[in-house]
C-alpha cells in the first residue's frame, strides 16, 4: 500500500468542533457582509456597471502615479489606473465610468497622451472593452438568474436523489417559483431577489423536511457568501468571470458535501455508529483521506493557474482558490452539523421502510 495521510483508525470528533466552526463561519460571513454594507454593495466591474477598460502594455516600467498624471489631461470621468498582472509585465489597466465618450475617442486620447508624454517608451493598447449601461444591467440580471437557477436545480436534485422524495422536491420548486414570481411582481429589485430566493429555498427545505438538501444548500450559501465577502474585503471587482467562478464553487462545494452525505446514508443503513452524531463523525473520518487528497490536487492546479495564468485569469483563480478551500471546510463543518441538527429525516425513524427502499 502506498502512502497514507490519514491513518485508517483516525477518529477525529468533527461534530464536537461544531460550535467553534459556527463561530469561525459567522465571523467570516459577518466580516464580508459588513464590508459589503460599508462599501455600499459589491464593486461591479465594467461587465455589470458599464464603462470602458483599456489595458496598456509598456516596454518598460512606468509607475502608476505617472500614468495617472499623464492621463489627467484626458478629463475622463471616474478615471482609475491600476497596475495589472505581474509587476514585470509593465501592464496597466485604465478604467473610466463614462458612457458618453466613444471607444474610438478614448483610444485616440490615450494614444495621444502617451505618445506626447512618454517619448522613449513604447506602448500597445492590448485590450479595450466597452460595455454600455443597458447591457451591463442585462448582464447583472442574467448573472443573478444563473445563481438562482443553479441553487434551485441542485436543491431539487439532492432532495430527489437522497430522500427519494421527488414529489416534495417538485413541491419545493413550485413554492420557490411562486414566491419569487410574487416578489418580482411586487417590484423587488433583482439583487434582493436572489437573497429572497435563497431564504425561501432554505425555508421550504426546512418545512418539507428535505434535510440533506437543507444541509447542502446552507453549505453552498455559506461558501458563496464567504467568497463574495473576501472579494469585497480585498476590493476586487465583480464581473462575469467571478460569477463563473462562483457557480463552479457551488458545483465543487456540493461535490464535496455529497460524498460525505453519501457515506452518512450508507452508514445509517449499516448502523455504523452508536447515535447519529457518531455515525456522522465516522463517515467524515472515512472520507477524510479522499477530501484532503482531492482538495489538495485541485488546489495544486488552481495555485498553478493563480501564479502562472496571467493577469486576465488572476481574479478568477483567486475566487476558485478561496472557494475550494471554503467548500472543503463547509462540507465537514457546516453541512454535516446541520444535518445532525435537523436529523436524517424519516430514514432514521423508520428502518423497515429504509431497508426496503435501499434494496
Amino acid at each position, binding site marked *: *500500500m*502506498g*502512502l497514507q495521510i490519514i491513518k*485508517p483508525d483516525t477518529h477525529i470528533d468533527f461534530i464536537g468542533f461544531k460550535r467553534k466552526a459556527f463561530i469561525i463561519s459567522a465571523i467570516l460571513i459577518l466580516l464580508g457582509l459588513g464590508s459589503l454594507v460599508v462599501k455600499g454593495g459589491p464593486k461591479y466591474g465594467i461587465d455589470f456597471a458599464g464603462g470602458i477598460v483599456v*489595458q496598456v*502594455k509598456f516596454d518598460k516600467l512606468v509607475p502608476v502615479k505617472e500614468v495617472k498624471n499623464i492621463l489627467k489631461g484626458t478629463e475622463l470621468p471616474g478615471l482609475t489606473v491600476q497596475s495589472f498582472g505581474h509587476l514585470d509585465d509593465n501592464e496597466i489597466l485604465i478604467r473610466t465610468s463614462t458612457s458618453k465618450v*466613444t*471607444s*474610438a475617442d478614448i*483610444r485616440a486620447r490615450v494614444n495621444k497622451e502617451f505618445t506626447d508624454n512618454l517619448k522613449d517608451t513604447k506602448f*500597445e*493598447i*492590448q*485590450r*479595450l472593452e*466597452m*460595455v*454600455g449601461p*443597458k*447591457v451591463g444591467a442585462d*448582464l447583472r440580471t*442574467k*448573472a443573478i438568474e*444563473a445563481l438562482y*437557477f*443553479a441553487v434551485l436545480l*441542485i436543491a431539487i*436534485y439532492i432532495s430527489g436523489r437522497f430522500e427519494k422524495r421527488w414529489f416534495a422536491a417538485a413541491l419545493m420548486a413550485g413554492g420557490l417559483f411562486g414566491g419569487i414570481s410574487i416578489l418580482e411582481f411586487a417590484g423587488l429589485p433583482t439583487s434582493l431577489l436572489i437573497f429572497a430566493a435563497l431564504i425561501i429555498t432554505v425555508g421550504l427545505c426546512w418545512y418539507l423536511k428535505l434535510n440533506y438538501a437543507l444541509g447542502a444548500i446552507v453549505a453552498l450559501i455559506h461558501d458563496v457568501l464567504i467568497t463574495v465577502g473576501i472579494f469585497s474585503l480585498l476590493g476586487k471587482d465583480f464581473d*462575469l*468571470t467571478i*460569477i*463563473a467562478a462562483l*457557480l*463552479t464553487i*457551488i*458545483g*465543487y462545494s*456540493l*461535490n*464535496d458535501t*455529497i460524498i460525505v452525505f*453519501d457515506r452518512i446514508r*450508507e452508514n445509517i443503513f449499516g448502523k455504523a455508529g452508536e447515535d447519529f452524531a457518531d455515525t456522522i463523525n465516522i463517515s467524515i473520518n472515512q*472520507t477524510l*483521506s*479522499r477530501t484532503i*487528497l*482531492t482538495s489538495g*490536487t485541485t488546489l*495544486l*492546479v*488552481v495555485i*498553478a*493557474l493563480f501564479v*502562472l*495564468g*496571467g493577469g*486576465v*485569469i488572476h481574479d*478568477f483563480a483567486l475566487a476558485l482558490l478561496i472557494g475550494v478551500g471554503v467548500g472543503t471546510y463547509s462540507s465537514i463543518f457546516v453541512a454535516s452539523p446541520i444535518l445532525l441538527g435537523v436529523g436524517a429525516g424519516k430514514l432514521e425513524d423508520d428502518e423497515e421502510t429504509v431497508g426496503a427502499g435501499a434494496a
Partner: protein
Amino acid sequence: MNGSLRWRIALTLIVVALGVAYLLPSLPAVQNSAMARFLPNDKISLGLDLKGGIHLTLGVDMDKAMDNTLVRLGDDVKVVAREKGIIVLKPKVINGQQIEAVLLKKEQQEELNSLITKDFNNLSVVSTSVKPDGKVTYIFAPTSEFKKYLTKLTMDQAIKTIRNRIDQFGVAEPDIRKQQGNRIQIQLPGMQDPERAINIIGKTAHLEFKLVDDLADLEKAKKGIVAPGREITVIRHMLPDGSYVEKPIVLRKEALLTGEFINDAQTRFDQFNQPYVTLNFNSRGARIFERITGENVKKRMAIVLDGKVYSAPTIQDRISGGKASITGSYSTDEAQDLAIVLRAGSLPAPVTILEQRTVGPSLGQESIDKGITAAVVGSILVLVFMLVYYSFAGLVADIVLVLNVILILAGLAAFGATLTLPGIAGIILTIGMAVDANVIIFERIREELRRGLTAKAAIVEGYSRATLTILDANITTVIAAVILYQFGTGPIRGFAVTLTLGILTSMFTAIFVTRILFDLYTSKRAADAPLSI
C-alpha cells in the same frame, strides 16, 4: 482474458484512436504535414480572447425605424387619398408611434375610413376629432402585427447589410447573429483595426443628393436661423496635414435622390493620385439623376451621407448614363470604406454600439502561452503526486488523466466548440478534479483491503460502491456548468463547455478505463497477491 474485458478494451481503443485523430489536426506541427489529409477537418477554434479580435453588440434603433416607416406611410396615405379625390393634409408622426393627419372635408370621412381599411391594412384609425372649421384630425396607429413584422424585417435587413459590409471588408470567419431585444452580436476574429471596422459596421450610410442654398446667410444660419425648407449642416475639408475642419453649409431639405438607386460603388484615383468614389445608378436612378442634373445646371449639389456633406460640386451639365462620383477629401482607406458602405446599402435604422470588446493579437498569444504553462505545471504536480501516493494505482490514474486531457481537447474539436481563456482554466480545473473519481475509488479499495478482502474482491467492491457516489457528485457540477452555458456569453460559455466535457470524459476514464487496467493487472496474478495501491 474474458469476453467482457475484451470488448471493453476494444471500445477504449476505439475511443482513444478517435480522440487522437480529432486532436492531431489542432497541433501546429501536424497541420502542415502530409498526415493532415487522413485526419478529420475539425480543429479547435480559438475564442476572440485568445485569437485577438473584436466582439460587438449593436442595438438597432427600432424607434427610428418605426418613425421612418410612419413618415413614409403618412405620405402614402396622402398620395393614395388624393388619387381618389380625398384631400389629406400635413401627415406627421406624433410620439414616434402614431400618424396625425388632417382631412380637409368632414363629408369625406366615410370614404377615407374605407380607403384605410381597404388599402392600408397595416394601419388602424385610433381617433378622429372634428374641428369647428369642418376639418377632421385623424390619428392612425400601426397594427401590432405590422409592428412585429417591421421589427423582424428591420433586424433581418440590418444583419444582411452588416454581413454584406463585413464580407466586402474581407474578415475571415465573421460571426453575426441576432439577439433578443433588437440586438446584433458580431464577432470578428483577428481584426487588427477595430475603429475602422466599427466605423464601417456602424455607419447608417444613408446617402442623399440635395441642392445647396448658396444665397442663405451663413452667419444667421450658424445661430440656427434658417428659412423654411432649408437646413444647416456641415461640410468637411481635409487640411494639408491630414486633419479635418467642418464648415457650416445650408441645404434645401428635400432629397432629390437617395442611395437606394445605387447599383455599385468603386474607388478610383484622379490624376493627382487622390482617391474618389464612383457611383453607378440603376436605370431608374439614372433617369432621375439625368433629370435633376438637367434642371439644376450651374447650381451646387451636395452629396450627404448620414447628415454630413462629403462634397458639393457645381453641376456643369446634364449628366446621363447613370454615373456620378463623390470627390472630396479623404484618405485611401476612407474612400474604400465609403465605397463598401455604399455598395452594401444603407442600414434600415441607425445602430448604436452597446458593447465592444477588443483584444489585440499579442495579448491573445500571451494568454495562450501562460494558460499552457499553468496547465503543464499543474498537470505535472498532480501526476507526480498521484504516482507517489498510490504507486501502481497512481500510475493507472496518471495514464487516464493524460487520456482525459486528450479526450477533452478532441471533444472541443469534434463538437466545434470554442476554446477561450476561461476554457483553458476549465481544463486546468478539470485536471485537478479529474483525479477525484480515482481517489474515491482507490480509497474505497483500500478500505475493502483493510477489511481483509483479496485484491480482486476489493476492486470489484470498491468500484461498485464508488460509482454511484461519483455520479451523484458530478451531476451537481454538470448542473452548474449547464446553467453557466445557458446564461453566460462568449468566454464564459467556453468555460462551461470544457468543464462539462471534462466531467464527462473524467467519469468515462476514471470508472471505465481504470477498471480495465486493474483487471488486466490482476488477471495474471494469484488471487491473494497484494495490490499496489
